């Protein structure tokens, strides 16, 4: 490592920084913070496997674009005025695409009437169809007469010709009710409720502007609620996401502040120099920079979760830096000190790289991104230690500091408890048996409901809105499959008949399918025949006497049917919510009894009930299995590496330290009630990688002069890692707290196990002066200390010192 190497590496880092700034700052690579976009993002060749998840993504993406407000007041006029006011203000918020109030729904009427008018006789509301099937055409005839003379009639010359019996307004009314956006003013318990629905910019959810949108909306609502008697309830994914995110951010911010302060204080106190702090910062910084560079070079979009997990390699990268700066400068030149730690550092790097690279064997893009980020980041951190850190000033750790004395005392304690090889091998057997027991007793819980914090107020408001207005669909839905759209529409019509009893007895609050809006061609033909035979045939002549138009009966043979094509989607964009890929979706509302629903669906072909929460939980379950597999591969690779390096018995013992740490983290967190899921498994990865570093650093320095420095480095590493990750356990957000708990338990276990499993070592807690003399002599030769010192020689030297101290 010469000045030229350092310069070249700095140029590489500067180029990487420029690349990142250009990619991310210039918008060439998108940082995706949207949770929904993560779901089902599989590597292309595996995409066919996750059909349910694709539908869930589609549904959640549609729902995430909608924010529902419900304004209530004691009088209709006040409620409508307040809703209009609210709608106007919300429409001005950056990120609002459109705001729909009951007035706006009314504004759509002419467009809808014009579009549907040519098909009026083929479109019957369920009530009208039922009436005609029951030979109650007379009722519809009388209603038509009344409608013509009603003050609220929407008839015009064209509608009289196309739809003299005024069937279409009733069809549109039924359709609007089913679509959910058609609700007007609701009067209940002396108050009037008016919905205001905001459609959000699709880009809002994938940026961090959604929190700002929610803040602005909440401020508007608060202003409105200052008016006496006006109340506003709100619901929508955007509110829940913002609440959850704000809660987590506040927690992480608090913890980050504490951790950073703690680490800076610790390094400052131990070294009394800015050099080690700078060393830690540039090592971690270069790791993160290289990680981001690697993922942005490969992917156009990087998910925020990948970045967050990737950034957790701070815990590993900082170990590299601490490992170097903890070596007493008196032990020799920078180059010599670097050579002392290089074997341990290299082995630690290889083990971590193998571990994280194993993540990329999964088919999930998220894990692949984490793997690439971590591998690139760790290599960069390693190179930074090699190329740059030797040029930074270092200060020795003051001998009089309590930490130095603590390390000496701890080393003595570890020496006392370190069993002989057979004992350590037995411990490894116990650890392996522990894994077997864990696989039997520890149950996983991948439910995504455990991850969030929940917001009681929002949940209450959501329930109120659903109860009063029937707005806000249930997360559950049905997927309808079929070769053609006609097949699917017919299936949906059969489905409604099957579920009618549930709808009537309240087991199911409501449902809407594409067929409710656009009946199948078969149904449209049936409707036309019904209208012709049961309405036109007996009543057209009577009606014609009262109207100045010629009434022509419909002819199914010549009719053009309404189809779910692009033209219909243009008029009714809400239908996008009911289609996904080559299938249709049936949205359900108020599912009270899932078992009854499943029973009712019975043997209906091509209908699949999908619960997004379960589907996402299952997906994370799959991710967890991949992570377990990768962890197993990583542990096996570590074992092989350790055996190659230290021989069979010592290698197995060294492997036992990270394995034991993982076991302790697994069992300990389970005992504390932490649910085991994908995220806690990823935390185990970190425990494994850091635990492997601990034991490898100690094993490499075993019986060498810098053994005590390594012990100090490992202790400092533990303190910094516990500050960085362990404090997460205090978070009130379950996901964050769970990860923190796993890491805290694992790292402490790793720190305890590492010196024990690294084997018997010298005992020279206070007598490193002799080492310094020895090192100084070696410095004069400027030889590679590690290569030239035979183990025998070192053992003799330190054993002597150790006995002397003892």
């Amino acid at each position, binding site marked *: 490592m010469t000045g030229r190497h350092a310069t070249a590496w700095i140029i590489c880092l500067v180029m990487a920084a420029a690349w990142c700034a250009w990619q991310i700052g210039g918008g060439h690579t998108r940082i995706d913070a949207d949770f929904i976009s993560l779901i089902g993002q599989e590597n292309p060749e595996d995409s066919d496997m996750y059909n349910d998840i694709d539908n869930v993504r589609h549904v959640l993406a549609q729902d995430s674009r909608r924010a529902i407000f419900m304004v209530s007041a004691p009088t209709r006029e006040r409620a409508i005025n307040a809703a209009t006011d609210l709608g106007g203000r919300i429409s001005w918020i950056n990120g609002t695409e459109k705001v729909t109030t009951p*007035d706006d729904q009314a504004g759509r*009427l*002419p467009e809808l009437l014009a579009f549907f008018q040519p098909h009026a006789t083929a479109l019957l509301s369920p009530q009208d169809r039922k009436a005609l099937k029951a030979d109650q055409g007379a009722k519809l005839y009388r209603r038509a007469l*009344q*409608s013509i003379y009603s003050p609220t009639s929407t008839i*015009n010359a064209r509608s009289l010709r196309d739809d003299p019996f005024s069937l279409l307004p009733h069809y549109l009314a039924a359709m609007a009710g089913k679509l959910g956006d058609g609700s007007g003013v*609701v009067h209940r318990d002396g108050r009037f409720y008016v919905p205001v629905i905001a459609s959000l910019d699709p880009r809002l959810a994938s940026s961090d502007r959604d929190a700002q949108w929610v803040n602005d909306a909440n401020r508007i609502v608060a202003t409105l609620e200052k008016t006496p008697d006006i109340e506003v309830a709100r619901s929508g994914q955007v509110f829940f996401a913002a609440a959850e995110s704000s809660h987590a951010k506040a927690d992480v911010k608090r913890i980050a502040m504490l951790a950073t302060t703690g680490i800076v204080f610790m390094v400052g106190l131990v070294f009394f120099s800015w050099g080690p702090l700078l060393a830690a910062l540039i090592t971690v910084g270069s790791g993160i920079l290289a990680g981001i560079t690697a993922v942005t070079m490969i992917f156009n979009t990087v998910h925020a979760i990948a970045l967050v997990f990737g950034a957790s390699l701070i815990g590993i990268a900082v170990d590299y830096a601490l490992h170097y700066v903890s070596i007493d400068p008196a032990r020799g030149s920078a180059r010599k000190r670097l050579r002392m730690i290089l074997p341990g550092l290299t082995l630690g790097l290889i083990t971590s790289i193998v571990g994280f690279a194993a993540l990329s064997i999964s088919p999930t893009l998220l894990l692949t991104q984490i793997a690439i980020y971590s591998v690139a980041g760790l290599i960069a951190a390693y190179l930074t230690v090699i190329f740059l850190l030797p040029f930074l000033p270092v200060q020795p750790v003051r001998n009089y500091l309590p930490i130095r004395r603590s390390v000496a005392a701890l080393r003595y304690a570890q020496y006392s408890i370190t069993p002989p090889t057979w004992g350590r091998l037995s411990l490894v057997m116990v650890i392996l048996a522990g894994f077997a027991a864990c696989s039997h007793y520890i149950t996983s819980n991948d439910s995504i409901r455990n991850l969030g914090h929940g917001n009681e107020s929002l949940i209450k408001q959501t329930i109120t809105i659903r109860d009063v207005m029937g707005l806000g669909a249930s997360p559950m839905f049905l997927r309808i499959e079929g070769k053609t759209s006609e097949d699917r529409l017919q299936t949906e019509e059969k489905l409604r008949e099957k579920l009618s009893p549930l709808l009537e007895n309240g087991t199911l609050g409501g449902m809407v399918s594409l067929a409710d809006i656009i009946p199948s061609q078969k149904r449209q033909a049936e409707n036309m025949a019904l209208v012709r035979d049961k309405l036109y045939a007996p009543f057209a002549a009577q009606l014609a006497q*009262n109207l100045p138009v010629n009434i022509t009966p419909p002819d199914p043979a010549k009719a053009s049917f309404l189809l779910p094509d692009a033209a219909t989607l243009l008029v009714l964009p809400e239908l996008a919510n009911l289609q996904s890929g080559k299938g249709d979706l049936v949205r359900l509302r108020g599912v009270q009894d899932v078992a009854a629903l499943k029973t009712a669906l019975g043997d209906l072909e091509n209908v699949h009930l999908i619960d997004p929460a379960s589907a996402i939980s299952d997906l994370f379950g799959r991710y967890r299995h991949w992570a377990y597999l990768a962890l197993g591969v990583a542990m096996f690779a570590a074992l092989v590496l350790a055996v190659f390096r230290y021989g069979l018995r010592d290698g197995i013992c060294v492997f036992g330290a990270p394995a034991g740490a993982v076991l302790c983290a697994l069992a300990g967190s389970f005992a504390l009630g932490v649910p085991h899921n994908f995220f806690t498994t990823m935390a185990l990865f970190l425990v494994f990688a850091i635990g492997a570093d601990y034991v490898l650093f100690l094993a490499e320095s075993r019986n060498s002069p810098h053994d005590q420095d390594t012990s100090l480095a490992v202790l400092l590493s533990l303190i910094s890692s516990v500050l960085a990750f362990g404090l997460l356990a205090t978070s009130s957000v379950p996901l964050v707290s769970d990860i923190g708990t796993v890491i805290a338990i694992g790292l402490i276990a790793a720190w305890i196990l590492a010196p024990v499993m690294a084997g018997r070592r010298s005992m020279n807690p206070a007598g490193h002066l002799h080492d310094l003399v020895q090192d100084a002599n070696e410095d004069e030769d400027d030889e590679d200390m590690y290569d030239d010192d035979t183990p025998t020689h070192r053992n003799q030297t330190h054993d002597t010192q150790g006995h002397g101290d003892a």
Partner: protein
Amino acid sequence: MTPARFVRSLLCIGLIASTMLLPKPASARPGAVALEKGHYLVGEFSLDRHLAGFDAALKSTGDFTLVPKGGLIWQTKKPFPGTTILGPTGITNIDADGEKSSVVGGNAQFGVFVDLISSVLEGNWSALENRFHVEFSPPSEPEWQVRLVPFGESAIGGQIIDIVASGTRYVDQVRINKPGGDYDDITLTDQQAKALPLPKDKASLLPGTTAQ
């Protein structure tokens, strides 16, 4: 002047003075007399519906009952008997056979008419000011006229070009001009303000109002 005439004159002056001193209801605007609180309006109507392309208008007549903030009962007698109720919960039709049907319920697409028609017939222009430009005729003219033009961006603009209401004490005449050349002429006659509660038969049609 006899004592009796003097007393009558005093009473008359007192009545005029008290009328002048009474605070006017907030909704009173030029050209319309607001109903006193606790009162409702009854009268007869004639609706002429003119559709473009048809020579003859579709004509209907009947009675109406208007309860401010309560709703409107529109009882057509000719050419066919039937009742349309514009209440807080939406629009309900009752045909000649007594068959009741909630035509649109609280449906927003049609529900806008509930507010519109009731407010126009009541002469409650303030309730319409958030949707319409309201133009009043000069107050000096004995027969006033009010023109309501939907805001350009207003949703109702697609269904109504303008509404012209005129009258003396109450709203007597309403013309609703619609796109395509269609228009409705509504004439209201024999209007009387009565104190609530509504008679039982009417109260049953408008939930939320008390019966006699």
